[in-house]
């Protein structure tokens, strides 16, 4: 029986040999056995450098909007775990990626970071079939029981307590904006945090600047975050950013019945108007 890594290498090799892709973005061995690192394969004979193991963390959909790569490689194939396929779906919805020039090698890594996590290359090869797999098989597994418990615990707290909690967390922020850079949904050419004529957000790492940045980013991700967790993993000061993102994702789901990244044909709640939308918050 072939290993997940061998399956992945075979899939990548075939895409490069057939010319369906001129670049495969995947995982390679990192600096320790417990680390992988993104690698960029352009020749079929290099496909043997790819690995698939429980330490595949990065959401590689993030590189689909990279201008330097797109200028060099018109047809890109990306190795995408289930949350990362959701990111691809959102990027297609938002017209940042053209599905025709894209190949997705769907993979399943149940518990990234856990050495015993099962992992496999998904049998589905088309985006339609991968989305169907997400809706039928992945959606019920999207939030782990621990993640759900943590967000329910936050929801149960009174607003003043939640405010105090986030104030303390955001106080740690150094404004490196690694959360933004690690996020596949943060692809804006000019981020609001970089707009300085005039300055929209204070760039200082003081309570006002940190609160403005983190709240603005959370709002921009409401109904768009696909729960990959890369922002939280990148954060050098351990702010539990995913708790905030999951909180907002549940709000969006409660009010609009929408989960991001499961269907390229759907309209996003904040990009669509429906007569039956709840209007009672308008004064």
């Amino acid at each position, binding site marked *: 029986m072939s290993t997940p890594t061998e399956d992945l290498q075979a899939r990548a090799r075939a895409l490069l040999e057939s010319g369906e892709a001129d670049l495969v973005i995947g995982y390679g061995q990192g600096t320790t056995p417990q680390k992988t690192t993104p690698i*960029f394969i352009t020749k079929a004979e290099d496909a043997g450098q790819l690995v698939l193991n429980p330490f595949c963390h990065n959401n590689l959909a993030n590189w689909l909007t990279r201008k330097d790569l797109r200028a060099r490689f018109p047809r890109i194939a990306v190795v995408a775990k289930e949350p990362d396929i959701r990111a691809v779906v959102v990027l297609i919805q938002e017209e940042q990626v053209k599905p025709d020039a894209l190949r997705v090698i769907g993979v399943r890594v149940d518990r990234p970071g856990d050495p015993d996590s099962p992992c496999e290359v998904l049998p589905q090869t088309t985006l339609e079939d991968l989305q169907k797999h997400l809706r039928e098989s992945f959606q019920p597994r999207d939030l782990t029981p621990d993640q759900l418990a943590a967000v329910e615990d936050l929801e149960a707290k009174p607003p003043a307590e939640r405010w105090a909690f986030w104030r303390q967390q955001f106080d740690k922020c150094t404004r490196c904006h690694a959360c933004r850079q690690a996020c596949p949904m943060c692809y804006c050419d000019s981020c609001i945090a970089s707009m300085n004529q005039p300055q929209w957000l204070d*760039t200082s790492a003081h309570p006002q600047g940190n609160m403005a940045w983190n709240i603005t980013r959370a709002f921009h991700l409401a109904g768009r975050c696909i729960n990959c967790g890369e922002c939280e993993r990148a954060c*050098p000061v351990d702010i539990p950013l995913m708790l905030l993102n999951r909180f907002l994702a549940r709000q969006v789901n409660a009010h609009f019945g929408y989960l991001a990244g499961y269907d390229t044909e759907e309209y996003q709640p904040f990009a669509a108007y429906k007569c039956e939308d709840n209007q009672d918050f308008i004064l």
Partner: protein
Amino acid sequence: MSTKTLQASRLPALLDAIRQSTRLVAPARDGDRIHFRPVAAAAAEIASHRDYIVPRNSIKEFFFPRSEPLLAFERREAAVAVDDPPMAFPPTVLFGCRPCGAASLPIMDALYNWDSRDPFWNARRAATTVVAIACTRADEACFCTALGSAPNATAGADLLLTPLDDTRYLAEVLTPKGEAIVALAPDAFRDAAPGDADKQAPCQAALDALPSPLDLDRIAAWLAANFESDRWAPLSYKCLGCGCCTFLCPTCHCFDIVDEGTYRRGQRRKNWDACQTPLFSLHASGHNPRPDQAARWRQRIEHKFNYYVQKFAVRSCVGCGRCIRHCPVNMNILGQLQEISTL
């Protein structure tokens, strides 16, 4: 200046004595993270040096804070009043940094005393005593030895403690500031006997795990000659430009100056900045001389291992490994330097 031994059992009392007379900054545990922060309550908050390779943050923020006011302004009637910020910094003891952290200070001194003497950096330097602890182990990201340093090097430290065994430290008193620490609890220290002075043995496990020295002159020469190399693009494809490396780095020192506030009053502040973002080099015209991540990653390596060497005759890197350890995409600056050294 002198070499003593410190009884490990007396260390908590020494730390409490420090804390009573000065601000104490030391590695403390908050959740899973061990990081340098002021320790106000008790010496028990301080993490044992055995529990960390290096703390998450570097010590630079206690000399060069992530954000600080340079001046305050207020419009009054006809004139604008401009006030300097307070320049009195509390006496501080920075305890428990590694030799790599201490070594970052003289490197940064060169920059902050080059074309002008930076009053903020220098005043905090003068007010701070650095007590370093030698490393008894290293992880895969550590590379001080690749840069010619060592896990028990003394540069930048006022006092260096090397754990001899579970009960004693060798205490190298290196400056008058270090002597002042000894004077806080003289009973805790004894003059070292000749046999005590072997500070290599405790660090042997770390030395065994650390990489061999790099040919740094050859690297600098390659960097000087290969600004336009085709290698920079593939080297940097995976770099997200997140800047974690620069924010955690003990020797990255770039800052941005911003004016904040309203028409009536506000502040001019100095904030950490990072060469890994497009905004860092964006001109007012809209032109960006570092248009892609290849140019920005090249800048990081060129600055640390070529430009800084040309300007100050020292590399702007101490091999602490934070940039490797915490990079979300596992960029490996050591691996890249090793590769460059063979070209």
